[in-house]
């Protein structure tokens, strides 16, 4: 968001860590936002009940009232602000609660000021959001219905990858990138970027593996019809599909399946190929 666009937007930072509150206030003010702070959840809720804010940066574990309670009570406000949750608590219970309570985004602590400012800009620039529906909130079996919308991909990634905070970085990055590519395919090709259509995502976690299932609302595809994808070509033909995409007027890309296949241990499509499962062994 530009400084001009940010002007007049009111942001409340709620955190019991004074140094972080001050840093965020300075960084966001430099971007043009009007920024206020609160020291804990109770003070934050009182401010929100008495003044209008466009966005809240909300810590989770604070004295007097925690961020999850604040998040729940925000629904009682006539026009609730957008909420970005910032926490070092990566447990599935906490993150699933924030999704259920319609938080816009999650930022894992510690984070860079640059990334926080970026998320605030995106949250305030975004239009009305289609809700993410929680079907199952068991930590070992998470299932969500996600609107076919580019922005929803970023939002859901922030929450689901946050839950993988206990995995080695390399494994987390591989899962994250594979999930990103397959979800983008699902919302773009299967759901035609129509936010009224939904992608069904399930994430199962056992001691020895992480399994994702992504089911899109489309009619599926065939591998022999993928001339616009890098996976359809033998080694040494890295640019052939780019020419096909150019001729078809498709956006640049086509590396998603090739990438995903190399990042996970199992990649299985159903017969129609509108549903895919990937597994990463731990």
């Amino acid at each position, binding site marked *: 968001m530009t400084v001009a666009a940010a002007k007049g937007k009111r942001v409340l930072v709620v955190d019991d860590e004074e140094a972080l509150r001050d840093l965020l206030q300075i960084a966001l003010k430099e971007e043009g936002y009007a920024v206020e702070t609160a020291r804990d959840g109770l003070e934050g809720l009182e401010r929100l009940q008495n003044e209008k804010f466009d966005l809240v940066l909300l810590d989770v574990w604070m004295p007097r009232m925690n961020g999850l309670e604040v998040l729940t009570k925000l629904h009682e406000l006539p026009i609730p602000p957008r909420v970005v949750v910032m926490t070092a608590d990566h447990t599935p219970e906490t993150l699933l609660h924030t999704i259920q309570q319609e938080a816009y985004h999650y930022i894992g602590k510690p984070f860079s000021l640059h990334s926080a400012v970026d998320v605030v800009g995106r949250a305030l620039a975004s239009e009305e959001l289609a809700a993410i529906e929680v079907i199952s909130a068991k930590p070992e079996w998470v299932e969500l219905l996600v609107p076919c919308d580019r922005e929803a991909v970023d939002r859901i990634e922030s929450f689901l990858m946050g839950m993988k905070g206990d995995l080695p970085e390399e494994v987390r990055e591989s899962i994250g990138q594979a999930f990103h590519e397959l979800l983008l395919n699902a919302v773009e090709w299967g759901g035609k970027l129509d936010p009224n259509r939904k992608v069904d995502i399930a994430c199962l976690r056992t001691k020895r593996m992480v399994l994702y299932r992504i089911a899109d609302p489309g009619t599926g595809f065939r591998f022999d019809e993928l001339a616009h994808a890098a996976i359809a070509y033998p080694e040494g033909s890295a640019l052939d599909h780019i020419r096909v995409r150019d001729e078809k007027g498709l956006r640049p890309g086509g*590396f*998603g399946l090739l990438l995903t296949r190399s990042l996970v241990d199992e990649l299985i499509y159903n017969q129609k190929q509108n549903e895919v499962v990937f597994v990463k062994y731990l």
Partner: protein
Amino acid sequence: MALTLDVKKAGAVTVVGCRGVIVYGAESEELRARLKELLASTHSLVLDMAEVGYVDSGGLGAIVGLLTSARAAGGDLKLARPSERVQHVLRITKLLSVVETYDTVEAAVATYGHAAA
């Protein structure tokens, strides 16, 4: 995280410092639009990737599309200082044989054979 671009000249070579992520959506669109603009006046480009944390399929597509445009115009696009993660992505998509990568910006600039400023 959004993408910010910082354009500098190194002699006849244009060095574009990238900071953030290069992914499908606003970020890869921004990169394409800015570099297409630059390609109108220069065909020797270096992308400084030191501060790029992540590139997805759409980002790779944007980079490769720009590379083919630069080469079609008689120039090239080279990558400097890609992170290990970005190099891994280039490796598994077989793009390391297509895109030239260098450990430093100076090394990438020097391959054009122009005098650096």
